[in-house]
């Protein structure tokens, strides 16, 4: 082997190693953050009862204050090949913003609740609005939950209670700062 060949091997090896390391180095540097690579957030919560899936939304641009009576937009979809009926209960609960010194928020209080039964054909979807006719408390965090009203599903942990929508009637956030 000539000296020229050895020189070529060394310079090519150095250049190759430099290119590869330059390409991968940022990934190693960035990898030093403390993020936890678990699942991302679920944007639209679903409540599943048998083959029926519910999603709930507030009308676009909604904001609420004490005394308002919110309405919610429901979408129910039967993902099965057979007709299906889902019996759920819609529950709106509020939590007052606690004393700044408290360890945690107060217990939730029920503002409104109503049973809801939806029957759907195979792969049918229904959209409907639900009015609550219940005045919201002020300075509170409000959660709108669905839970199964069917005995068959009530004891199943994963369909127990799902928070579908969350909003607030608090107006004194700035003054609390």
């Amino acid at each position, binding site marked *: 082997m000539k000296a020229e060949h050895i020189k070529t091997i060394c310079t*090519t090896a150095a250049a*190759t190693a430099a290119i590869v390391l330059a390409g991968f180095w940022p990934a190693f540097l960035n990898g030093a953050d*403390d993020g936890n690579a678990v699942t991302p957030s679920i944007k639209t919560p679903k409540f599943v009862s048998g083959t029926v899936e519910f999603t709930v939304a507030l009308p676009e641009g909604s904001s609420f204050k004490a005394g308002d009576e919110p309405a919610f937009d429901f979408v129910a979809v039967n993902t099965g090949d057979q007709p299906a009926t889902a019996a759920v209960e819609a529950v709106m609960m509020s939590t007052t913003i606690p004393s700044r010194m408290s360890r945690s928020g107060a217990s939730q209080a029920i503002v409104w609740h109503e049973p809801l039964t939806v029957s759907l054909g195979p792969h049918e979807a229904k959209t409907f609005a639900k009015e609550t006719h219940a005045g919201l408390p002020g300075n509170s965090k409000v959660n709108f939950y669905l839970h199964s009203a069917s005995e068959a599903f009530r004891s199943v942990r994963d369909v127990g209670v799902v928070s579908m929508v969350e909003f607030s009637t608090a107006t004194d956030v700035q003054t609390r700062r």
Partner: protein
Amino acid sequence: MTPRWPRLAGIALGLGVAGIVLLILGNARIRAMSSGPILSEHDGHIRELVIQYIPEARDIVLPVYRDFLKWQDPDVTVDVVAPDRAAFDELAAAVGSIRCTLRPILVHHSMTSWSRDRWLALNPPPGGDSITLWSPRGEAASDLWPERAGDEQIGTDLSKELGHAVRAKRSSLFFDGGDFLADNDTVFVMPRVLNRNIQQTVKNSTELIAIFSRELQRRVVLLNEAPDHHAGMFMASVGDHVMLVGDPELGRKYFPPSPVEAKSLLPGGGDFSVETQHQFDAVAAQSEAAGYRVVRMPVVPAPDGRTFLTYVNSIIDEQDAKRVVYVPFYHGADSLNAAARKVWEDLGYTVRPVDCTSSYRYFGALHCLVNILRR
């Protein structure tokens, strides 16, 4: 003309060298990022703990800190998270002469005084020495509660201040540190953690349990039913597979029968309803099903579901061969205090009482205010 083979050999050699370098770096990074199992609540001597202090809460927390810190040995370091130096100095002056070391962690932002819920401590991995503080994705109501928004940063604040010894990691899940009860083989997770995460961060309980099993490296028992409060308000794992579980019916025996006295201790008096008793009994049953011997402890919850006269909200320490427990007590509840003390003593613990009269009306006691970083 130069033949091709030296260039090809050079490329192969370069790829090999780069591969080895990346492999070494990768292994080093994996070692740096990994952690051991969640810290047990009752195993080992406490070496480092964390409290939070804000002057606005002085009347609530100082009596608790004074009573607790006076017992701590010289080998204990207490990291005091405070908004600024003046706050730290105020606490140091107020607790007076103590034998442990107070170390200021000055964060320069708003915060609460409740340390327990901010993070879970994960032991170093085998061969490592960095504790990992696993903080939740976010604090409940932080959008409306500026102090809670500040609390979200405290795991990172501690890591920045304590350097290599402590690493901060943020979870994608919502929880409070107080929603967990861990010992050396099991971690109990409260039902409210599932309620906060299902269809928000995970699809189902299986996914949630899988994440906790992986991160906490212990058997995970997700309770189906429990009082809607933090674990430390109604249960404590005390070693040898014994679980202390609160019992309102037992508490009733020692609670003042006079309505006036009862309401002076708790808003609305004691809640001894069948529904509330059922929630505590459900925790006892699930603990037994998980292989624990259950011992009941007097507790008196208020009807608000938040204010408890509780004696499991304690801190356990091993000092040489001695098992020591710091247990809350409350002025005006002497019979309850004495009954609770006897339960701990019957379990072989040396009891050191801590006055939590000033804090329990704010929904927490000793265990809620003190978080253990290292044992």
